């Protein structure tokens, strides 16, 4: 008896080079692969530009401090973008919920253990309002959240009178939220990793995650398949604004203050981080781990440019150039990889599909036997 599959096609054992090549190809098909490449490339570039200071622990602490606060905000934006929506109000929600937290502690004397969850709940409420307006009036989320961004920011400016507000934060709360407790790394990094893990499980291992991706790929098809599209949309907005509130509370704990412009501009930074992380602006495709790497990339750019002695007037320009470069790398590689064919001896489908085919072939073979 010959060692042939049931299809009758002669099966050849691929060489090790092809196996590794195919493994790399399949890895590169993942959304976060180019974000890893961006991190590695920037690490090498900044290490060359600043060999004495960049590859050191203090630098990594700085990078993670920036990445954590922005990353928590960006994870919500990522889930929303995979679901096919935008939220431009996250920066204003961050500011407004920070204000709520500060006022509850300062003016109402509440413990931060109570004030912080209330602020997150307020954030969730604001997100729910965004989601409700989007699904109720069928207006594009870009426009709705542009409007609410102006509203929340205006409310914050009016409430603060335009001036920063300070509050005394208990040391324990400060340390738990953002203290440098992990060998100098801030606790915000732990929250960031925990939220990344939870969001990844939600997106890849839960029914809601499936629904989110289905909603992002094709709303009508998802609706026809029984996905509660409107409910998913509202949940996504709630999650996004709640995470913005969490990021705000971490900043309140760290700086013991809030100001009228807190969070301004971060909505666009979050979009940049999300896109660097491999999530498509068109929705339906993306990765939370990619966003984590995107946030680290952003932090690396911010810190690396200072350590490399970049000219002060061009700081934003250079940040923008690197972000655009990272996105070009990301989308170009993704496009090329999507067009690529499996290396010899491998089927076009993914590993899971390969396994299914093999299982089917084995079953067929068993029946024939």
């Amino acid at each position, binding site marked *: 008896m010959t060692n042939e599959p049931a299809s009758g096609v002669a099966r050849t054992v691929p060489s090790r080079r092809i196996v590794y090549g195919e493994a790399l190809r399949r890895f590169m098909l993942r959304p976060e692969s180019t974000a890893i490449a961006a991190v590695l490339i920037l690490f090498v570039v900044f290490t060359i530009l*600043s060999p004495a*200071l960049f590859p050191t622990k*203090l*630098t990594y602490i*700085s*990078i993670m*401090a*920036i990445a954590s*606060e*922005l990353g928590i905000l960006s994870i919500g934006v990522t889930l929303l973008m995979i679901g096919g929506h935008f939220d431009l109000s996250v920066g204003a929600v961050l500011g407004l919920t920070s204000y709520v937290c500060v006022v509850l502690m300062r003016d109402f004397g509440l413990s931060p253990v109570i004030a912080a969850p209330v602020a997150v709940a307020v954030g969730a409420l604001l997100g729910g309002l965004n989601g409700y307006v989007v699904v109720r009036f069928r207006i594009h989320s870009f426009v709705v959240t542009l409007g609410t961004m102006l509203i929340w920011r205006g409310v914050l*400016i*009016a409430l*603060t*009178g*335009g*001036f*920063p*507000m*300070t509050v005394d934060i208990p040391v324990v709360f400060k340390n738990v939220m953002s203290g440098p407790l992990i060998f100098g790394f801030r606790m915000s990094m732990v929250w960031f990793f925990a939220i990344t893990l939870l969001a990844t499980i939600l997106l890849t291992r839960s029914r809601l995650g499936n629904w989110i991706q289905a909603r992002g790929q094709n709303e009508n098809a998802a609706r026809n398949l029984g996905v509660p599209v409107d409910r998913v949309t509202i949940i996504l907005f709630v999650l996004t604004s709640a995470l913005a509130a969490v990021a705000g509370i971490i*900043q309140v704990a*760290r*700086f013991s*203050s809030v*100001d*009228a*412009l*807190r*969070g*301004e*501009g*971060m909505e666009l930074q979050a979009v940049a981080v999300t896109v660097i992380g491999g999530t498509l602006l068109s929705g339906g495709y993306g990765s939370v781990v990619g966003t984590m790497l995107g946030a680290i990339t952003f*932090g690396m750019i*911010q*810190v690396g440019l*200072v*350590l490399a*002695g970049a000219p*002060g*007037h*061009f*700081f*934003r320009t250079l940040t923008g150039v690197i972000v655009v470069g990272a996105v070009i790398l990301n989308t170009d590689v993704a496009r090329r990889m999507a067009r690529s064919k499996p290396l010899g001896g491998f089927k076009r489908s993914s590993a899971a599909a390969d396994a299914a085919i093999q299982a089917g072939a084995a079953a067929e073979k068993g029946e024939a036997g």
Partner: protein
Amino acid sequence: MIACRSLSRSRKGVPVAQPGGIRHLAGTIAASLLTVAAFVSAPDAARAEDKPISIYFVGCAAPTGFHGYLARGAEEAGKNLGVNVTYVYPDQLTIPNQVQKIEEAIAAQANGIAVCAFAEDKAYAEIAARAKEAGIAFGSAAAPPSGAQIRDPNDFFLFRTGSDEAAAGKLTAQRLLSMGVKGRVVVANQQPGDASCQLRATSEIDALKAAGIEADFLELTMDPGQQSEALFNYLRVHPDTAAATSTCDVIDGFLSAKADSGRNDLILTGYDIVAQSLAAIKDGRQAFTIDQQQFWRGYMPVLLLTHYLKYGLIEGNYFLTGPTIVDKDNVERVSALVKEGYR
């Protein structure tokens, strides 16, 4: 008294033809014409009755925070002088939006207009000419060009009253030099598009460099976390940095970077009076802050307009409200005045 108006114009009552025939329509039109005629003749009648002077203060932003003190200054001047003051402002600070508010003030037949000018003079030249044609006194609640002291007789602004931002940057540099700063100074701007902040930064750097001190410009964002990490790493690259200046009022990131770097000897300076700065000056984390006495920026234009309209008085020198310094010596007194709304 003071009244605040938003950008949107209030709708005037427009006569609408009702069903009921031509006679009714003719009656409506006649009544409308009579009403319009009454409105047109109103200013003359009001003048005859010695109507109070009406001054429009065209601000840069809503009367909150910094601009709240301007509005409060204008309000108090109005009360003290017995004139009506109306504070109007654009929703977004752009030249067209602000000029639109000036046009509204002209249309409202104000006796005087003070504008919180934020752009070059030529942006206001045309509207100033229209105000002059309408017989309206027109002044600037902003500083004159840097270095100008004596009022130019051809200046289309009757007066200029504000803080000299270039002088503010120079003052910061002079104070740092008097404190014996050596080595390097970093001057950071969190709002790179803001001309005031940029002028402060440029003049401080120029003055420091002229005195032989290394001075760098650092562009930052408004996020305090990103500010803190950028400054922290700047201090790592340049451990000889003796002082850091924040050209905007958000100082949290600077205080955090100073604490994180363990650089207790780092001299921090800032702008404007905010809670964090006052607290940091009191406990020694910040050396001083530059104050432009914004209350005066609201009060003085109303005073100057009123005296011009009543007595024909025009200033000889431009009136500078700042810069002044708030440091450990006067921080307690200033804090008390902040609570009263004057600083």
